[in-house]
């Protein structure tokens, strides 16, 4: 299956990049299917608090990043979302992402102990194969969180991932996440903290 995905990726190199020309993606069914199933599996691991397995889905060189955002005029909208040198809620390498996993499984991370209950909806999966054989994947997410007695909040936004093909038979998954940018729709987060992973 891995080989097929690599092949299908290679066959679509002429497809325009995201943001240029048609927004329509001519993704082949197998690639679309594999990517969606991968994202669903990842969401399941998080909803089930299987963080130690979840962290294995990330590449050694991953940049896992959630920039801040502000309200700007239409004219200045290109400056609405922070760039890599500006503010972020999350700005992790693999080492720190592993640290978050250690924290969440420590039993003393009080913002997640007792743990929140989450349900992740991942939709609108759009795939653009890249020259290097990796896939640029954009998806929408809606993460509902229920916490303690009656607290609830929602994280809604878009994720920009780069998925790197790996040996499905060896790892149980067809890709690792080589890059992730998480863009939330809220500029003022209507939540006491972002203690869950996105």
């Amino acid at each position: 299956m891995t080989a097929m995905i690599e092949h299908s990726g290679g066959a679509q190199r002429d497809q325009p990049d995201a943001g240029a020309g048609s927004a329509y993606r001519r993704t082949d069914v197998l690639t679309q299917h594999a990517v969606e199933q991968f994202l669903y599996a990842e969401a399941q691991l998080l909803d089930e608090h299987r963080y130690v397995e979840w962290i294995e889905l990330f590449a050694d060189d991953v940049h896992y990043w959630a920039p801040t955002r502000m309200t700007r005029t239409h004219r200045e909208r290109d400056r609405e979302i922070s760039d890599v040198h500006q503010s972020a809620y999350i700005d992790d390498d693999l080492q720190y992402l592993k640290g978050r996993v250690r924290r969440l499984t420590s039993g003393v991370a009080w913002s997640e102990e007792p743990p929140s209950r989450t349900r992740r909806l991942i939709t609108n999966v759009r795939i653009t194969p890249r020259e290097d054989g990796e896939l640029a994947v954009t998806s929408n997410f809606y993460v509902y969180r229920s916490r303690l007695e009656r607290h609830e909040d929602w994280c809604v936004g878009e994720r920009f991932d780069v998925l790197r093909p790996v040996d499905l038979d060896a790892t149980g998954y067809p890709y690792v996440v080589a890059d992730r940018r998480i863009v939330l729709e809220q500029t003022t987060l209507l939540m006491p903290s972002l203690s869950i992973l996105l």
Partner: protein
Amino acid sequence: MTPPVNELVDADRGYINPLVFTDQGVYEQELEQVFGRSWLFLAHGSQVPKRGDFIQTYMGEDPVLVVRQKDGSVKAFLNQCRHRGMRICRSDQGTSRTFTCSYHGWAYDLEGNLVNVPQEERAYRNEIDKSKWGALKVPRIAEYKGFYFGTWSADVPEFEDYLGDMAYYFDAVFGRWDNGVELVEGTSKWVIDCNWKFASEQFASDMYHAEVSHASALIALHEDPAFWAGTSHQTLMPGRQFGGNGHGSGSFWADSIGFSESMYNSPALSEWVTANADEALRNVSEQQLLKVAGHNTIFPNFSWLAGPATMRVWHPRGPGQIEVWAWTYVPKDAPDEVKAAYRRMTQRTFSPAGSFETDDGENWTEIQQVLRGWKARNNTFNAQMGLGHDERDVHGLPGRTSDALSESAARGFYQRWSDLMAGLSWSDIAELDAARQAKEALHQEVQEA
């Protein structure tokens, strides 16, 4: 029945009535007496570098525009049109020449003066005096080491007098570099369902919570379990807490310059700090560099840490809610690599997703929930840690200090709060504080004798 507002806290005995965190009437009075009469943080100059640059922020619940003027000064005015009260500007930040209300089109210049009224001839017969209908200006703005503070009060002392001994602790962090600090662009904003005083007081006075509340933070920061008990080790280190004029600052002491920066785990950052130690020592004392490394609040709601480089305002949103607006500050002259190291570690620890920050909000929201109970609300909270053990001008530190594990600054915070809430004038408060200090000196003499 709510007791009289000046009986809700007893700073001398360390009692807090939880109604101060829940009562709507108390909150309305806070907006007028505390937020309406204190110096409030508006912006750092780096947020509005060029003329016409503006940000929108809040003074209490009032939206204000902070604008860099043509002459380089910074002015601020209420973000409210004088015609029907619409917000004049609806962006968080930007660059502009005028601010035009999107309701009927009244337009204001960078100082907030009303400069254009649509259909002025037909609708107003040219009878409107535009000079009288400018946006409400923040009458007093103080610039201190690149930071801008504003107040609606005509009577509050000048900003440096308002700071008092807190200036020593502020300067230790923000005054150490020749060209000061700048804020990383972009604000982290989030909402916590808790009273603003929990957050403000904690940053003024609470080193005590770290060991328990932040038990997991060091587990996130370090792979090696040998480091996980770090906060417990810290409690064995010497340290002091300062309280004065309602402000507070507390630190465990570093044993060498650059020690506080070792947490960043960045060789580039540590090398830069060491290489520039002479510059820091020209601007502040060695004592300041070693003994000011922890938590800080300028009364009422501006806080920062001197380890992780986080700075924030706790904007009140009713008795049971705040908006946290947080930034990372970095030395302006540091190379990009060093600024990035400050930024990353500060965000990893104290952004709304930070390994320390998330656990703070958890405590405050739970307290606020519990205070829905009638019995819980009519209970008494204990703020007696270190009561009677304050000293003045010891260990080379100015002002009233006590051990780092103390609630001395919290008692001072609530004393200032109580004085303002009682409606005392600023001159009355100054007299009272002088009398309290005289009594304190007497107490110290008796103890020494």
